[in-house]
């Protein structure tokens, strides 16, 4: 497999003053008011431009963008089923490879993008994802993580954070809500030895767009895990999507980093981390947590962050 570092040698970054102008996603889509996921998707699509073929899993982004007869997609788009975005994208990528090699179409360096939610990535879709990553297809996989199966009514996924309330992990006398810690999908992707893995949040749009662009430049599989705030499912105010996307990074709950050719690189060191309560208090899905629960979570968040710093070769903070 080629080295991402070589593919990214001449990478020209986007800056706040130099943002991409393309809008491959059209307005008029049916996402909820204030949807942080479609915002993240919009930013990723802007970074990738129009020379892209999108394969989408079933999920929020598929439903809101393709209700017949309206499509929000200005680029080619294919939806087959829920658990197979990575497998379908593998087919598109391989088809193009064969047709170009056999001289039937021109090589225009098209990007192959698979998008899926946390359900379609970490749960029902994990097999197809693992297969596609292992086979080394030249594609970008973006997981839009709104931390539950939102499209079907806010049921838990393996990406739901510990303690969060969902309809299938409701808090109650006998339960804290979600009883397991969020599955570490970026680490799972990185364990497949792929050239590029990154995490992103739409609150840090320049960082996210640069990562999406880099993912498309890398030869081989690239995995992007994008935090996608969902006011509807998290029960926060509709104007708070960006703020939650900011706080989740500032509280170290969802750190921004890359794994390039297997090496971890922190994107943004959190200088004065905020306590997790700052993040929780915006969202009613955490409202039931006791002080003890919060302390447990804070301790683990701190520990996980220190572990990440170590992986990045940075001394953990005091």
């Amino acid at each position: 497999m080629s080295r991402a570092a070589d593919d990214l040698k001449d990478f020209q970054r986007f800056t706040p003053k130099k943002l991409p102008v393309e809008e491959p996603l059209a307005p008029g889509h049916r996402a909820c008011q204030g949807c942080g996921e479609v915002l993240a998707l919009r930013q990723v699509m802007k970074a990738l431009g129009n020379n892209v073929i999108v394969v989408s899993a079933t999920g929020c982004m598929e439903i809101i963008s393709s209700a017949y007869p309206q499509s929000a997609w200005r680029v080619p788009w294919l939806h087959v089923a829920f658990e197979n975005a990575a497998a379908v994208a593998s087919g598109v990528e391989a088809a193009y490879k064969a047709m170009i090699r056999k001289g039937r179409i021109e090589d225009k360096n098209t990007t192959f993008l698979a998008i899926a939610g946390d359900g379609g990535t970490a749960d029902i879709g994990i097999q197809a994802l693992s297969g596609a990553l292992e086979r080394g297809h030249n594609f970008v996989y973006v997981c839009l993580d709104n931390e539950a199966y939102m499209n079907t009514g806010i049921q838990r996924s393996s990406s739901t954070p510990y303690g969060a309330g969902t309809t299938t992990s409701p808090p109650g006398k006998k339960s804290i809500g979600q009883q397991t810690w969020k599955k570490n999908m970026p680490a799972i992707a990185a364990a497949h030895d792929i050239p590029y893995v990154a995490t992103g949040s739409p609150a840090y749009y320049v960082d996210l767009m640069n990562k999406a662009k880099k993912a498309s430049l890398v030869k081989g599989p690239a995995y992007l895990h994008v935090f996608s705030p969902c006011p509807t499912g998290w029960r926060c105010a509709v104007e708070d999507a960006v703020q939650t996307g900011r706080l989740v990074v500032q509280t170290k709950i969802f750190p921004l980093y890359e794994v390039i050719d297997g090496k971890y690189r922190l994107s943004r060191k959190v200088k004065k981390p905020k306590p997790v309560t700052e993040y929780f208090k915006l969202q009613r899905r955490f409202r039931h947590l006791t002080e003890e629960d919060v302390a447990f979570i804070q301790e683990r968040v701190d520990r996980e962050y220190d572990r990440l710093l170590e992986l990045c070769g940075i001394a953990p903070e005091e």
Partner: protein
Amino acid sequence: MAKRVGIEVSIAVSEAVKLANVDVVAAYPITPQTHIVEHLAELVADGHLDAEFIPVESEHSAMSTCCGSSAAGARTYTATSSQGQALMLEICYIAPALRLPIVMTVANRSLSGPISIWNDHSDMMMSRDTGWIQTVAENGQEAFDLTLHAFRVAEDSRVLLPVIINLDGFTLTHVIEPIEILDQKEVDRYLPPYQPQMRLDPEDPVSIGPVGMPEVYTEAKKAQDEAIKGSKEVILEAWQEFGDLFGRYYKPVETYRTDGAETLLVTMGSLSETAMTAVDHMRAKGKDVGLVRIRLFRPFPFEEFLAAVEGAKQIAVMDRALCLNGAGGPLAIEVKAALYDEPERPYIWNYVAGLAGRDVTIENFVEMADGVEAAAADGLRGHYTIINVRE
């Protein structure tokens, strides 16, 4: 020049796929399909076939990958059996709805449980309602020919539906038969390159697979229904042309010594050959028995079937799968549906036989012919018998 060789049927099928110059093969191994995909892998590895061979991690992904490939505009092929067919079934409903001309060989094998690797038609029957065009091969030559025919039909702009070629696992896939392998020039004359009507292309963006709101779903299904009904014309045309070019003519329903026969057997697949020998034996003894063999299973050839059974007084329909609805097997149900509106209907008895590789002998076919005659004479009701079962 075409060459007549002794060749394992699976290998002949892969050779047909190679001659069709597929672009993408995405397959997961399952007994008894394995030799097909293994040989394709070899052909690609040695540069004899210029294709992307994708060793996917499951059959569900195999069919998913095929959908992506076909939607991108590539000639696409896969193969499976039994449990693999079951696992990809979700996507098998989607491929024809999206009008993706994928070609798939199904090496027919029984469905679990109990788990069995041996041959019957339960996997074919499971995918009856998916919307795929389905043909059934009786021997190795047919397996080869029907594969080329499948690409030709699937990719025709009037069809654009995926096609399954059924061939009996082990009894066909693993036997060596004399098969005429066409050469590349001959195949190119029959099979033009694939010209997609709609594909994923940044120059001409389309959205494939949108949400079928209630306002459109019925119309979408009607369009699909009309498409598969309309495909029959192209299927027949493609068989006619095959015959004109290569001398082997295929029909949706084949008959064998049905003239003057009041008793008919109905079969599908490789056991038809045993049935033909049984018919010869019975005719030699003066019994007027004939055989009807179904080659086109989907869309069901109602017209040709009714013509084939005209004049028969009783029909023994052999099924190699159980419906588990209390009435026997699925083929008999289709036959009864085909005959329901006819003013004169023959008596029908359903024989379920050959489940999971259980042998069906010439004697068994004689038993079926005698049995249906006796049942008809007695006016027996009750639909079916599972033959060769130890009580």
